[in-house]
């Protein structure tokens, strides 16, 4: 895994972005999806994922749905209306952050 500290602050944004793309997802699916997208570079630990999901849920950004799958109950998360707006804000913030970091580490580089 890469430098986990660099990813840590962006965990909530990563979750929101994934849910925006996928509609609804469950915890295990999120860990696997992130692993797949980053080719194993970023592994979201279970101990960090669920607290993040529960926090976003308590903030009213996520809504939950439960379905019976394979003898067990599965809890799905999806964005609320407020969550959709917040995702746009947080992605914009993250992009600004990336742009500023790029300026700092490589002043000649720019993203359009």
């Amino acid at each position, binding site marked *: 895994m890469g430098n986990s500290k660099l990813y840590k602050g962006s965990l909530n944004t990563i979750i929101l972005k994934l849910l925006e793309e996928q509609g609804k997802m469950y915890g*295990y699916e999120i860990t696997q999806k992130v692993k797949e997208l980053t080719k194993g570079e970023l592994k979201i630990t279970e101990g960090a994922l669920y607290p993040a999901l529960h926090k976003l849920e308590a903030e009213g950004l996520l809504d939950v749905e439960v379905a019976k799958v394979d003898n*067990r109950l599965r809890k799905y998360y999806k964005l609320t209306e407020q969550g959709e707006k917040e995702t746009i804000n947080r992605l914009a913030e993250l992009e600004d952050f990336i742009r500023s970091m790029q300026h700092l580490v490589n002043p000649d580089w720019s993203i359009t």
Partner: protein
Amino acid sequence: MKLSKDQIQELYAFTRKHYVEHYDLQTELVDHLANGIEAQWEEQPERTFKDACLREFRKFGIGGFEKVIRKRQNAMSRKYWKIILRFYAEYFRLPKILLTLGLTVVLAPVFTLIPLAYRYESIIGLYFALVLGLFYIQFKNRANNELEMVKYGKKWVLKDQIYTYGNVVMIVNLVPITLNFRYFRNNIPMDHMPVLLAFAFLTVAICILSYVTFYIIPQKAEELLAETYPEYNMAP
């Protein structure tokens, strides 16, 4: 290969053994462990259920489920206070605001009927009496909640918050304790009308907070639980 019903029940027992006492969190962790075990079986079908389960559990780190449990409590506590604020906001519409102000204005002169020498102590006494009353209701209802838990075999984080009343009684208890400090006793002029108005307002505010947490929210408990936990009414 998929997990059987019995193995799912074993996973519930496993989470309970690792101090996850609330059904809502157990359910989520059981599904997580089950997915992990099934993924392992795809690669190594000969691996035993117990071994696969422990491997999955170890991914939660050295503290096991401890961090997830703690953070879940915090998140639910935040959600509970949001619910209280929502009810407060609903409560404080214009007629109720007028009622609250009216009660404050009526109560302040009532305090003047108490002889000045005993006024401060009487008000503190009033608050302590209120705290005792709230403690009594809390203990009585907590027992009912535990009985229900035994009957249905499930605990819910939010339900616990509702029937321990978000520890409002502890917060209310701080008021008379703080007022009992000698500094406040000696320096608050109990013959000034603005001071009495402030005490009257504080009394009314405490009564409304108690009314919302001890009466209104428990009345809506089932509705709030169903809204928070989609599995609440479908749990086997």
